């Protein structure tokens, strides 16, 4: 089936083991990249939407008990999660007379959860950066190797005609094309996610102090 008539696939059937290995690596990169993109896209978008909805509610009522009850509806949002951890810490403290200690402990709990949330958000994203940076080079390696082999064959056949040169180079260039095909979506997704995550992290940083203040000012 994969004969020379089938364009790229026909070329691949004649490719050497190194080029095939490079293509296999790039295909794996691409598959994992797209899986991360799909997974993270839903995760980050939900987190942003739920955080926004929870903040609106929180500033509307400014009551920690009601806000906690409402936060149960936003289990995937980053800000509701951080708020919940602060509330749990607040309720765990028996003596609420020592305001300073209360503030320190709630602030610590909120910060810990904010850090955990930040890690959760940015997990797997660096892989996209890795793919975006390395895939073109891996593809280029496959191309260079393919061209080396091609020139070697040209030397062996003692023919430098177009018919002898072109298929090898064409076959080798498939690796670069595959590298770019894996890298381009990865880089685009990485830029998008880092931007969205930075927005969420900024929100976490800004509203953590508001949450702590809300617990302390709770009557």
């Amino acid at each position, binding site marked *: 089936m994969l004969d020379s*008539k*089938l*364009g*790229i*696939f026909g070329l691949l059937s004649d490719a050497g083991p190194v080029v095939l290995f490079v293509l296999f690596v790039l*295909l794996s990169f*691409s*598959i*994992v*990249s*797209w*899986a*991360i993109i*799909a*997974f993270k896209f839903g*995760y980050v978008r939900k987190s942003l939407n739920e955080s926004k909805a929870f903040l609106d509610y929180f500033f509307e009522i400014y009551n920690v008990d009601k806000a906690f009850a409402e936060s149960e509806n936003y289990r995937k949002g980053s800000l509701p999660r951080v708020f919940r951890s602060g509330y749990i810490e607040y309720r765990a403290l028996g003596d609420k007379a020592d305001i300073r200690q209360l503030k320190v402990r709630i602030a610590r709990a909120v910060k810990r959860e904010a850090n955990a949330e930040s890690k*959760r958000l940015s997990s*797997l994203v660096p892989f996209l950066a890795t793919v975006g940076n390395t895939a073109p080079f891996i593809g280029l390696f496959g191309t260079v190797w393919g061209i080396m082999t091609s020139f070697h064959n040209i030397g062996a056949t003692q*023919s430098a*005609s*177009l*018919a*002898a040169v072109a298929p090898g180079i064409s076959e080798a260039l498939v690796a670069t094309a595959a590298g770019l095909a894996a890298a381009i979506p990865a880089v685009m997704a990485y830029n998008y996610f880092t931007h969205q995550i930075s927005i969420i992290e900024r929100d976490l940083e800004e509203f953590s102090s508001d949450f702590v203040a809300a617990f302390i000012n709770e009557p």
Partner: protein
Amino acid sequence: MKNSQKPKEHAERKFSYWLFAAAAAHVLVLFLAMYLQILDLGRHAQPKIVSVSLISLPGSAGSHQFSEKPGGAEAVSAASPSTPSPSKKTVAVEKAASDVAPVEPKKPKKAVKVKKTVPEVKPVTPKKVSVEPVVSKTKPKVIEKQPDISQALERLKQTVDKKTATSQPTSASSLNDALAQLQKKVKIEGDQAGTGRGGVRGSSSGGRGGSGNGYGSGGTSAPYKAEIASIIMHNWEFSKLLLKNSYGMEVYVRINVLPNGTINQIIFDKKAPSEYLNNSVKKALEKSSPLPVLPKEEGTKDVWIGFVFTPEGIEK
């Protein structure tokens, strides 16, 4: 602790799902690309790459005795296994025989080519060194170009068949007589049809086969020519795309083949303006040497065989 593990497991499960989905999507995309390529190939015809016309130069081949070589007047083209088309490489090997010159009445300057595919060219067996093959092999040429001559030849064939059936020639002399008669009749028929002698020159590759003159010691048989033409074709590495203007590009080449098949000499009678084409032809001939050993019927002397290489196919 248990509560913190739960969302983690859920996230991992979800990521595994997406991983599987991505793999499936990649497989789908690959199959789609392959399907589209097949579709695209089906829509577009194969691009024309190179067309080669290999014909012998008139008079270049040696003394091919008409009375002894039944294939002297035949014209055979060796081409790719399918029928000749502009999109495929085509080789036409022609053999000139001065004895049958009047057969070409209306096209005195043009060569008559009868195309056959290489597998169709059957070697002449010793038993077929008779009158019959001469007539039967010239018949397709006549049918294609000159219907009236073909009828005449058909009649001749019938008469010769009758004669051979009755007398059963066993010796070479009787065979020669029959062939001479046939030759005469063909000449007469050709003259009646108003033919000129020059019309045949280019039509066959035997050259001055009948007279015994020529470069080599004997004319080459069509199967042998077809065979070497296909070998040269196979070794010819040439792309028309590299020629800026392929119009009028043709290379006339003669090769001197020794009995053991070695190409002794290559003479360019006419070179193309493109050195690329000239070099490719030269390399193809050099690469093809040694050719298959000459057939026994060719004798022990060397032969001259001519070819015309053109990137445009058989146009002449």
